[in-house]
C-alpha cells in the first residue's frame, strides 16, 4: 500500500504541473480554436527565464514568478500579433505555424544559451519533506500543487468575475455579435494568447527545479497538456482540472501496475478512444459555436 500512496501523490504532483500548462493551452484553444504547438516552448522559455533570473540577478524561483509571467506573456503577445492573428480563419494551419514557431524558439535558445542542461535551485524554505507514515511528500511539490490551485482559482475569477472575462466569454460564444456590441475581439484574442503564454511561463518556472532544463523539454509536455485539454473539453476550466488529475493519476498508477512506457501507451489509447466517442471531451462547456 505504501507504494500506492506514494504513487498517488506522484500522480497529483504531475497533475498539478499538467494543469498549469494545460490551463493556458485550454484558454487559447477554447477562445480562438488555435492549437498552439509552441506552448511547450513557452514552458521552456519560462524555465530559461527563471534560470537567467537566478543566475544573473540572484532571484529565487518564487520571487521570479511574476517577472517570468510578464516576460513570457510579452513574447506570446508579440507572436500573436505578428503570426497567429493572420491565421484565425485557418485553424488547421495554426497547428503548422505554431509548430514552426516552436522550432524557431527551440533553436534560438539552443543557439543563445547552449544545448546543455541547466540547473535551477529550488527555494531553501521548501527543501524538506513532510512524512505521514510511509508517505513522503516533498515540500516543493506540495507548494506546486497549492500554486496550481491558486492559478486555477485566479483564472476562474478572471473568466467569471471581471469585465475582461465577460468580454472573453462573449467572444467565445459568438465573435460576430460581440463585435457588434463594441467588444474588440482582436484585442481580447491578443490578451488571451498572452495570458495563456504567461501561464505556460509560470509552469516552466515551477518545474525547473524538478526537471532538467534543456531546449527540448517542452516537446513532450505539450503533447500531454494538449491531451488534457482535449479530454477536459473545450472551454471548460473545471473539465481541464479534472482531466489533468485523471491523466496524472492514471499515468502514475499504470506505471506501477505495468511499466512506465506501457502505461503511457495505455493512456494514449484511452485518449484516442475518448476523442472518437466523445470528441467534445468529458466535461464540455455549454457554448454555442
Amino acid at each position, binding site marked *: 500500500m505504501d507504494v500506492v500512496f506514494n504513487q498517488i501523490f506522484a500522480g497529483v504532483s504531475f497533475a498539478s504541473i499538467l494543469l498549469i500548462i494545460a490551463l493556458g493551452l485550454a484558454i487559447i484553444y477554447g477562445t480562438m480554436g488555435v492549437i498552439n504547438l509552441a506552448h511547450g516552448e513557452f514552458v521552456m522559455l519560462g524555465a530559461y527565464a527563471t534560470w537567467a533570473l537566478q543566475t544573473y540577478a540572484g532571484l529565487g524561483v518564487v520571487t521570479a514568478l511574476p517577472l517570468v509571467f510578464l516576460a513570457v506573456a510579452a513574447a506570446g503577445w508579440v507572436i500573436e500579433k505578428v503570426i497567429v492573428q493572420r491565421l484565425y480563419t485557418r*485553424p488547421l494551419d495554426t*497547428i*503548422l505555424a505554431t509548430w514552426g514557431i516552436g*522550432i524557431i524558439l527551440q533553436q534560438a535558445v539552443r543557439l543563445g544559451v547552449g544545448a546543455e542542461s541547466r540547473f535551477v535551485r529550488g527555494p531553501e524554505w521548501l527543501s524538506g519533506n513532510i512524512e505521514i507514515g510511509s508517505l513522503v511528500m516533498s515540500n516543493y511539490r506540495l507548494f506546486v500543487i497549492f500554486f496550481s490551485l491558486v492559478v486555477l482559482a485566479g483564472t476562474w475569477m478572471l473568466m467569471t468575475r471581471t469585465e475582461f472575462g465577460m468580454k472573453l466569454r462573449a467572444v467565445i460564444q459568438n465573435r460576430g455579435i460581440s463585435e457588434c456590441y463594441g467588444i474588440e475581439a482582436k484585442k481580447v484574442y491578443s490578451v488571451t494568447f498572452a495570458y495563456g503564454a504567461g501561464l505556460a511561463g509560470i509552469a516552466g518556472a515551477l518545474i525547473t527545479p524538478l526537471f532538467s532544463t534543456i531546449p527540448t523539454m517542452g516537446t513532450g509536455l505539450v*503533447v500531454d497538456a494538449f491531451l488534457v485539454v482535449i479530454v477536459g473539453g473545450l472551454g471548460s476550466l473545471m473539465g481541464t482540472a479534472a482531466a489533468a488529475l485523471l491523466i496524472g493519476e492514471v499515468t502514475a498508477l499504470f506505471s506501477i501496475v505495468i511499466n512506465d512506457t506501457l502505461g503511457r*501507451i495505455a493512456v494514449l489509447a484511452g485518449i484516442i478512444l475518448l476523442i472518437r*466517442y466523445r470528441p467534445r471531451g468529458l466535461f464540455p462547456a455549454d457554448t454555442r459555436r
Partner: protein
Amino acid sequence: MNSKLSYDIIGLGLFAAVVLFGVPAFFGYDGYELNTFARYLSLAIVSMALALSWGTAGLLNLGQAATFGMGSYAMAMHLKLKASGDNLPDFMGWNNVDTLPTLWLPFHSLTFTLLAGLLIPAAVGGLIAIFMFRARIAGVFVAVITLAFLVAFQLLVVEQQGFTGGQNGLTGLAQLTLFGWTIDIYSVSFYYLVGICLMVALTFGLYLTHSKFGLILRAIRDDVERTRYFGYNVATYQTVIFCISAALAGWAGMLYALVLEFASPTYMSVSFSLAIVIWCAVGGRESVLAAAMGAILVNLAEGRLSDVFVEGWHMMLGLMFLLVVMFMPRGIYGVIVDAGRALRRRGGPAEPVEDPSYDNSLSRKQES
C-alpha cells in the same frame, strides 16, 4: 479541377527526365553521390503520399511517419534475417530472446516482405481510418488522433526491444536480392530503381487525382456536408485514400531502409512526421508532383545548408515553414499556378475561371 491533365503530364515528363537522366549525368554517374539523391527520392514518395490524403482529401495525417516506419521495419526485418543466416539476429541474444519470434518467421520470404511492407501499413491505416471516419471525425481531431497513434506506436517499438531492437533499431543488414540481382546501394542501377519507383508512384497519384475518385475527394475536402447530401459515402472514400496513402508511405519506408541500410525508431518520431508535412506544404499539397518536388528541394537544401550552418539550419527550416504557411498556404505550386493564371489573364483572351470556389476552397474547408 485541380489542374489541367496536360500540364500535369508535361510536368511529370520533365520531372522524370530530370530525375532519371539529368541528375545521374550531373553527378557523373557516381554511385555515392546518387545514393544521397536516392534518399531524397524515397522521401519524395512519402511526401506525395501525404499530398493524396492531406491536399486532395483534406485529412491532415500527422502520423504518416508511423506507416513509413512499418514499411522500413518490414524491409529491415527481412534483411536482418538474411544477414543472420541460421542464427538469431544479434540484438535478440542481447535481450534474452532465445527463439525467433513467430512475428519474424514469415519475413524470411521476400515476397511476403514486399507485400507486408505495402499491406500492413495499408491495413493499419485502414483500421484507423474506419475507426475515425465512421464517427465523422474531421479537421483538427484527425490530426490529434493520428499524432497520438504515432506517439503510442513509437513508444511500443522502442519498448519491445527483443522484437525490434529498441532504441537502436535494426542495423547490420544484408543486401537485398531481387530476382537474382543483389542490390548494391552505391550503384547507379539502385538509383534508377528508386527513381522508377517514384515515377510509378507519381503516375499512380496523378491518375488518382484526375479520376472521378479524385474529384470526389476534392469535393469532400471543400464541403463534406454537401458531398454527403449528394449521396456519396464520405467515410468509404476517406478510408480508401487513407489506405492508399499509408501503403505508399510503407513503400517509401522500404526504399528508405534500403538506402540507409538500417531502420530506426527515429523514422517514427513526431519531428520526422512533421517534417513530412513541411515538405508537402512547401511544395504544394494540392499536387502530388509538387509535394514530391517539395521533399526533394527541402532535403537538398538541408543537405547543402546544414554543412554551412550546422546550428542555424533547423531555425531556417522553421522560419521557412512558417513563412510558407503564412504567405503561401498552397506552397510553391500555388504561387506558380497563380502566376500562370495572372499571365494568361494579362495577355491573350480572357479565360473563364474553371471553378468559382477554387480560390478560397482551402480556407473555407478549415472552418469546421
